[in-house]
């Protein structure tokens, strides 16, 4: 199955940029700069408020029309769409975790005479990240599922090849799609176990 | 002597490999008030919970009013009781929990009247009248339409007692009913239990750390230690005149 590499690279790309956007947006929303806060707030609401598939088509079809630029390739269109979408969702987790930890721990850290930056770096951030881990794992599975959408913008992923085989031999359709589903499930399995493990880790070192 | 209402015959209980109760023998007569004292982890709660059918004994028999609680006959063979059998026996027993366990989605009147209506098929008006009467008796006649969240811990615990009492059990179980309460609220709850005890005909088993209260109310006191009844007798025998070293040192911690 050639499609596997495409699915995996799209997943890795989406995950990398997704987490990156999540941290940037999550921290921006906690910044004291009101412009930054409002702007990222707008980004988050727009991408959470509309469908991924709509965003994907929009990036793929509309962006080139609007600005006359190409995103380079449909790989980038797919990765950016998934990353922007899940980045928006996960930024809420980043923000929520930091707020949750900050609530109880800021006073303790202040009592130790730490600066604002030290508080964040030494006390709050390490705990908040631990709190985020299980949700991040869950979203990784969501992103894997989302990669199936890139076949709709002409990328040759697992589903694309499945569709090709199906259209050349209709009676094979059940076998083909079951196989495709199992491919996704096999990719998901390590992520499922990873998430469970992360849950265990996050239960340990967080004050509640 | 009258027949006992509750009998434990060589009852053992283990959780996994941990032996918690190692052979409990016990007779409780109708109207008898029994206090169980003992260090934390000695198995007091477990005894009560087995009687309430919340926990199944590992071996031994518990007889309630002549019926084996956890076993029943099936084609001449003794088998583990099913839910139907348990329900039939459970009607004789009521329980007040350490953490109240009131139903938070019901008013306190509803907390009291729901079981008589649905479990005992009592008419709504009679269940309501009796519930109000009982709530008045525990001093909460003016709170009928409040929700548990609006009450203090002491008040909640008094509702819990009223709720158990309207079911007219023959045996009432109290598991450290004052230990989740702020110290100033303990008195009002003990007062209500004293009242109930005076009324008479119901047997009561009280797990408690309030020694003066046990002296006052209990006909019999059991000292439970590491899963066995290490000492038993009248309240004054056990609490005031025992020679048992471990009991002495246990009691010492409750004397100032």
């Amino acid at each position, binding site marked *: 199955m050639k499609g596997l590499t495409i699915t995996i690279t799209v997943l890795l790309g989406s995950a990398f940029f997704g987490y990156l956007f999540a941290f940037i947006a999550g921290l921006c929303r906690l910044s004291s700069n009101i412009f930054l806060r409002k702007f990222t707030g707008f980004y988050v*609401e*727009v991408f*959470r*408020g*509309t*469908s*991924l*598939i*709509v*965003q994907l*088509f*929009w990036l793929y*079809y*509309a962006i080139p*029309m*609007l*600005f006359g630029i190409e995103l380079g390739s449909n790989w980038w269109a797919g990765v950016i769409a998934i990353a922007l979408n899940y980045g928006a969702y996960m930024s809420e987790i980043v923000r929520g975790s930091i707020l949750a930890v900050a609530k109880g721990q800021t006073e303790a850290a202040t009592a130790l005479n730490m600066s604002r930056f030290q508080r964040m770096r030494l006390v709050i951030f390490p705990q908040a990240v631990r709190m985020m881990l299980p949700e991040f794992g869950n979203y990784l599975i969501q992103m*894997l*599922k989302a*990669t*199936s959408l890139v076949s709709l913008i002409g990328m040759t992923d697992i*589903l694309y090849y*499945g*569709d090709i085989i199906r259209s050349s031999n*209709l*009676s*094979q*359709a*059940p076998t*083909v*799609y*079951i196989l495709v*589903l199992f491919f*996704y*499930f096999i990719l998901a399995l390590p992520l*499922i176990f990873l998430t469970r493990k992360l849950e265990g880790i996050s239960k340990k070192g967080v004050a509640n | 002597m009258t027949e006992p209402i509750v009998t434990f015959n060589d009852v053992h209980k283990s959780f996994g490999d941990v032996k918690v109760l190692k052979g409990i023998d016990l007779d409780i007569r109708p109207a008898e008030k029994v206090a169980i004292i003992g260090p934390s982890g000695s198995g007091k*709660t*477990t005894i009560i919970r087995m009687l*309430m059918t*919340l926990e199944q004994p590992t071996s031994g028999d518990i007889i309630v009013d002549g019926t084996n609680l956890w076993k029943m006959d099936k084609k001449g063979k003794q088998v583990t009781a099913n*839910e139907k059998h348990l*329900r039939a026996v*459970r*009607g004789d027993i*009521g329980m007040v*929990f350490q*953490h*109240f*366990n*009131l*139903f938070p*989605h019901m008013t306190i009147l509803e907390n009291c009247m729901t079981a008589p209506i*649905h*479990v005992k098929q009592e008419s709504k008006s009679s269940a309501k009248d009796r519930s109000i009467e009982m709530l008045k008796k525990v001093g909460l006649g003016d709170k009928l339409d409040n*929700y*548990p*969240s609006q009450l203090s*811990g002491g008040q909640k615990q008094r509702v819990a007692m009223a*709720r158990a009492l309207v*079911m007219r059990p023959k045996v009432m179980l109290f598991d450290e009913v004052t230990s989740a309460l702020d110290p100033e609220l303990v008195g009002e709850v003990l007062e209500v239990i004293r009242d109930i005890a005076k009324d008479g005909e119901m047997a009561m088993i009280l797990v408690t750390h309030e020694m003066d209260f046990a002296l006052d109310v209990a006909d019999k006191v059991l000292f439970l230690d590491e899963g066995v009844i290490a000492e038993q007798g009248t309240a004054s025998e056990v609490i005031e005149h025992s020679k048992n070293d471990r009991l002495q040192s246990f009691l010492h911690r409750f004397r100032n």
Partner: protein
Amino acid sequence: MSNWSWEVFAEAFPIVLEGLGITLGLTIACYLFALIFGFFWTFLRRIPFKPINWIVTWVMEFIRSTPPLVQLFFIYYAWPMVPVVGVTLDPFTSAILGLGIHFSTYIGEVYRSGIDGVDKGQWEAAKSLNFSTKQKWTKIILPQAIPPTIPMLGNYLIIMFKEVPLASTIGVAGILHMANSYGAQYWTYLEPLTIVAILFLIMSYPSAILINKLEKKMNRRFDKKEALNSSKGATA
């Protein structure tokens, strides 16, 4: 902004809007299906028999961790070819089944979390008052288990609303489908797709705020202190 045309926008708007009824209808249908089917999973998971429990857990995990798009294709393209039980389903019904089943696994977990959230002491109190199994569920457990899940269930309505455009891939003529066919016809995707995005935003953003409010209200109603007290457990 060289290629943006308000004329195209105005022309495409009513056409895209025609699909809104289908999109909303499909959302509601999928949602109801998932709400009902979710009970089925919750029930299956409560069967106290290890092998069944294990199988159900993994079937749910399978459905949940594979793409709904593929599941949709399976039901629409492959199901008719399945020997014996296979039937041809129209796109709308396929979408209800595909998305409905996918999300029922999530809804089932929501129900489960609601039931698990009811304190152990409540089960014990119900037992001590000798309620029957049915009474225990209807009078004590469910009335406490369901209200806290309402915000989560509301969230899933919004999530499903946003997944429903997947059905355009098998030809369900919702707003995305309308926009795409307009785009294909006049070779201008920008405006119709923007309209779709705006429609989604208009509908889901206020609902999200509403649910947020609901959640806050629920939290306040739910008796935090009581829950804390009793969650310390029955044994001490």
